[in-house]
């Protein structure tokens, strides 16, 4: 799994951080998503896919 994020689309909702805190964080200044781990281990994949599906700005892309 390889994750990319579109910072310009991100609306700073932080839902990805709630769903997959090991993979996503938010920048302090503006809340934009910070990708902590672009190639997370298999145990985190389901949470990452959930985060991508529910991201309200469609800013998370998962490539498998």
């Amino acid at each position, binding site marked *: 799994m390889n994750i990319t994020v579109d910072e310009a689309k991100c609306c700073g909702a932080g839902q990805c951080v*709630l769903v997959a805190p090991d993979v996503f964080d938010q*920048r302090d200044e503006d809340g934009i998503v910070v990708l902590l781990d672009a190639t997370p281990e298999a145990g985190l994949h389901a949470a990452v896919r*959930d985060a991508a599906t529910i991201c309200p700005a469609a800013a998370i892309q998962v490539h498998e």
Partner: protein
Amino acid sequence: MSAARQRIAVIGASAAGLAAAEGLRRLGWDGVITLVGDEPHPPYDRPPLSKQVLSGAWPPERTTLRDPGRLAALGLDLRLGTRAVAYDPALRHVTLDDGERTVLECAGVVAATGVRARTLPGTEGVEGVHVLRTLRDALALRRRLAEPGRRLAVVGSGVLGAEVAAAARGLGHRVALVGAQDTPMERVLGREVGALLAEVHRAHGVTLYPGRTVTAIAADGGRARGVELADGTFVEADDVLVAIGSEPAVDWLRGPAAPDLSDGLGCDRYCAAAPGLYGAGDVARWYHPGLGRHIRIEHRMNAGEQGLAAARNLLAELDGERFGERRPFEPVPYFWSDQYDLKLHAYGVLAGAVRTEVLRLGEDPLRLAALYGGPDRVTGVLGIGLTPRQARSLRPLAAGPGTWEEAVARLGETVAA
């Protein structure tokens, strides 16, 4: 199971429908997934329509939710420009308006048809009168606002009306915001915070007409020229945006054995409206166990979450052995709104609060955290001008079991942390 029973139809190809289709595939449904959308476009995102698309910051393609490759990888039977016109709950048959009235035999159906913009009667076909729900709507208004020096009257001061007023001011147009409420977004934010928002709009040069109802849209030769208000005021305008709410798109579900369709598709805690029929997104009014009542949420966030939940529960109903047990859908709702350089974040349910507690953070009146609910418990929290961490830290207050007094006591330390 016959071959025809190997189909799940997702009706509605916006955020909720796409999330459901994606969820079905991801959770292991290897039968047919028919995704039906009445617009010609592949699934796209609506929140940018009233912001980035209207302002011209984004080309419309940017709203596409999944690029063609990722959409193709889902292996969908994708039917765009097609509308569902009937549903038979006993047979689980969906009828399409594709010219041949094709009947889809389904194992299960996810209804994600969303809402339609409410219009003002008598304004059909009047040039310069707009609603904003679809990409087409947004581009029509965008074309008008691409010319400089327009006068835009926005009828309705809810979330959409307030956002469009801000975007149009950003483009330098003269903007009037007419609302039956006393302050913008009052139904959601309450009067105290709504009054702050009103000041922001005024400071940016929007002319507010609060507490007014519209009696007519005046037109000359089929072209709008202004809005008449009940108190006799006439607001001159080249274009009028009607943003007075929406109606759930449930007509296709009507029939003798139809489920409860009062204010959207009535669903239980699992998002099920009937055996094999699940609702998701703006159209679904479901029983939220935590709130102890039915609720229908028109937030972008809910569309994705509920699409996924409906997919999961439908699969569990169809094959519990393979897909596990159904789970109640019990989210903490989340929404955000951008107006000028303001960012509003809210968790839980703010509307209908009987008490609010507004905590101002320093000199700037537009940095605040607020609790909504009462008399005994908090149902929602709002943050304006907070850091993301502060905004996120508010969430447990909306979801927590504590009393109103406990939440008020914790509010200060929460945002200070």
